[in-house]
């Protein structure tokens, strides 16, 4: 193997890893605040570019009706003034979509907001009632498991909907930037890298520096404490899902020209992001991001040397990492 190939593989690994990293960040965020392992993040990610492609073709995507339906349920679940957000948001979304048919810039925005709205509505309709129903402290493990199974159920349903809305094949929206920056790296790839680093930094600052970010994390640890700080846990969860939706949608839109978007593409991305998130112990943003890049690099090299066994090797290599993490984890036994 010569230097060129090594360089190309490294570049490829970083590019892939950064994608996993973006999703891993979103998953860590959601888990930290809500204890939900957001399995359907891959579907949310794919909904954005696919909706965008539909809008560009002048059609209204099925995801719009899904979002509005969930928004209606959300409004039903809220009382009084709380209904304003889903209703106004839904109406705004519909209007935006009607305006955005054929206008690429508006379509981009519309696809983005659609996924954010869908993310929040998903939390409000499916996860929040579950969390409210489970008494604090009792059966924590079971509750995380139940939340996980709920996430799996939504993944199945959203993937099925993706197939109905967008068909079985892939779509490739035009990249925002054309051409190659250097051998092996397109300008669109540069854009993805820049966006990834930026969002990693932004999340870090948000949770370490801003009061709201800290309070958000506190909501995960201690609901009463968070309530005393003026944050309702429901709100914290919705904010987390909104941020996760935003990140998923943006990375989906930026990536789609590179990887081709399809309803089935999300799950494996999400799974590998989950792997990376676990490497970060589901708590640390920088470690999760680094873990993701590591997974990407490893994948790139195994696909060069033993492509048939790539997935097996990637997942098996997790095991030593898990051991290390597990040994490091504090506490005798929980």
């Amino acid at each position, binding site marked *: 193997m010569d230097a060129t190939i090594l360089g190309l593989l490294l570049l490829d690994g970083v590019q892939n890893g950064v994608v996993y990293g973006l999703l891993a960040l979103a998953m860590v965020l959601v888990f930290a605040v809500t204890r939900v392992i957001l399995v359907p993040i891959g579907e949310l990610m794919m909904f954005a570019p696919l909706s965008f492609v539909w809008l560009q073709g002048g059609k209204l995507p099925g995801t719009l009706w899904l979002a509005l339906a969930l928004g209606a349920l959300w409004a039903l679940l809220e009382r009084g003034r709380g209904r304003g957000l889903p209703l106004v948001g839904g109406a705004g979304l519909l209007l935006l979509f009607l305006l955005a048919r054929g206008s690429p810039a508006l379509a981009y925005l519309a696809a983005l907001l659609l996924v954010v709205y869908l993310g929040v509505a998903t939390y409000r309709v*499916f996860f929040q009632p579950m969390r409210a129903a489970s008494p604090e402290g009792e059966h924590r493990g079971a509750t995380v498991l139940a939340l996980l199974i*709920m996430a799996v159920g*939504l993944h199945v349903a959203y993937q099925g909907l993706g197939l*109905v809305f967008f068909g079985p094949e892939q779509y490739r929206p035009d990249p925002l930037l054309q051409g190659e920056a250097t051998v092996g790296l397109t300008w669109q790839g540069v854009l993805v890298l820049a966006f990834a680093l930026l969002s990693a930094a932004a999340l870090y600052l948000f949770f370490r520096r801003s009061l709201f970010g800290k309070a958000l994390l506190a909501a995960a640890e201690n609901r009463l404490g968070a309530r005393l700080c003026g944050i309702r846990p429901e709100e914290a969860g919705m904010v987390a899902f909104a941020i996760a939706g935003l990140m998923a949608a943006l990375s989906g839109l930026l990536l789609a020209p590179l990887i081709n978007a399809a309803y089935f593409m999300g799950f494996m991305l999400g799974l590998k992001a989950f792997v990376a998130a676990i490497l970060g112990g589901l708590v640390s943003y920088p470690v999760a991001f680094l873990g993701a890049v590591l997974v990407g690099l490893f994948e790139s090299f195994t696909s060069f040397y033993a492509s048939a066994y790539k997935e097996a090797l990637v997942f*098996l290599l997790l095991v030593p990492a898990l051991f290390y993490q597990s040994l490091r984890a504090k506490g*005798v036994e929980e």
Partner: protein
Amino acid sequence: MRRYLWFSLLLLPFLLSPFPFYLTLLNFFAIAALVALSLYVLTGLGGMTSFAQAAFMGVSAYATALLTARASLSPWAGLALGLGLTVAFALVLGLLTVRLKGHFLPLSTIAWQVALYILAGNLVGLTGGHTGLTDLPPLSLFGLPLDTPFRYAFLGLFLLALGVLALKNLRESRLGRALLALRGDALTAASFGVDPAALRLKAFLLAGGIAGLAGFLYAHFLRFVNPTPFSLEASIKYLVMAVAGGVGTIPGVLLGAALFTGLEDWLKDLLPLLLGRQGNYETIAYGLVLAGILLFAPQGLWPLLAGRRPSGRKALPQGEPLPPRPPSGRRGEVVLEARGLRKAFGGLIAVNGVSLALRRGEILALIGPNGAGKSTTFNLLTGALPPDGGEVFLFGKEITGLPPHRIHPLGLGRTFQHPHVFPEMTVLENAALATYARTRAGFVRVLLGLHRKEEERALATAYEALRRVGLEGLALERADRLTAGQQRLLELARLLASGAEVLLLDEPGAGLRAGEKRELAKLLLALAREGYSVLIVDHDMDLVMGLADRVVVMNYGEKIAEGTPEEVQKNPLVRAAYLGEEAA
């Protein structure tokens, strides 16, 4: 015998014989139900989540396929090899993974699952690759070929019924209680002699074996194997079934298996009728049904239908208690001794050179203001924390650094600051947990139901202990129905049932009403008179001073005074420590 009613499952093929397709579904139900049962052991009892049950099925399915289709051996040899391989496999994976904590275990099972799937798909020479292995022979039993769904269903359901009985035995045994306790709180379980890693590993093996059995059934029912039925998606589907039905109960996982096996087909019938056209709507509806179940029954469907009753036995024990173990030996002899204990957390020295001795038949109190290091000392004595320095002796034997499950059988029992009772179990079972170290039945005996006699005696022992603390009337209630005070008494009953003679009580008076405290004091005094040695950690001065023979006072990690209650109360250092605290 009500338990044998499960064999009435074998009537189902006759009932369903007019509907041939339901016979097929019945077979798939039996296979799915076996896998769901394996998840009952693993998740419902053991609190572990596995995303690799389909991989275990696959190991056994491929083993029997290779042996029968390639080497033309008997399927029963395939069964033996399949089960052997699955368990061996589970052993390797288990040794590597059951010690993993939290999310690491489920994630590592995902890793194994994906890796095995890829191997099955790519070792073309051995496994036939993604295309699979064809032409497996049908099973035959006593010369009768099981080549129709009708006949095959009997085998599947028979094995299922056996599985259910075996796991009911497991649930109503020392091992089942220990697993449930491990799931709720490993430290409590370990304090009664349960070795967490070993027991988890055994549960993992058992679950792997059951899944392997299901894989064998699957292979010879389809008579064809390829990797897709043993994929991560399949594993997730089984977990979904179990959790949706209620993974904590046997009827729950069976219900889940039945519901989701049928659901796929009912949706195929129903959706075209509802929507008026063919389409790809089954998976959507499947996902939404699951979401609905979880929203309205987060514990699963069965607990919703059956109410939140404990799943244990419903009758009081009749048998003879285990041989009593009254404390013996000379009163006043040192039973538990600590010399120069030290423990630091990072830079903070929590316990610094503490020595103390507990003598037989006395009540010794360890007191001190908040943050004095009492609880840490307590944890060092019981093995919950390893000390950085110093030694601990129990009956003259060094136990420094031993884990709690090794210390308990030597005769030391403890309670917790917050009572650790397990709501899935009855009060009686909670107490019977303590007999774990006094009973012997292992997995084989328990699964075969050969432990009943011992089990009756264990329960009788627990019942005796409950009677002693006055809880016998609540023996069959759910443990979380008890008041805080009753939970304290339950913890005491556990200690009595465990046969330990050195009793370490962490704040036994906390949360008790005045009357309850008086009862508690009376009980402790009586125990001490019988020769039990009691160490109490508390800061409730009234309780301690009226009860203790001697008092050890700690402050800032060090022992500052020791003596009778009167001596200690007069000690200026003690007054300063407590006054200081009150002034702060």
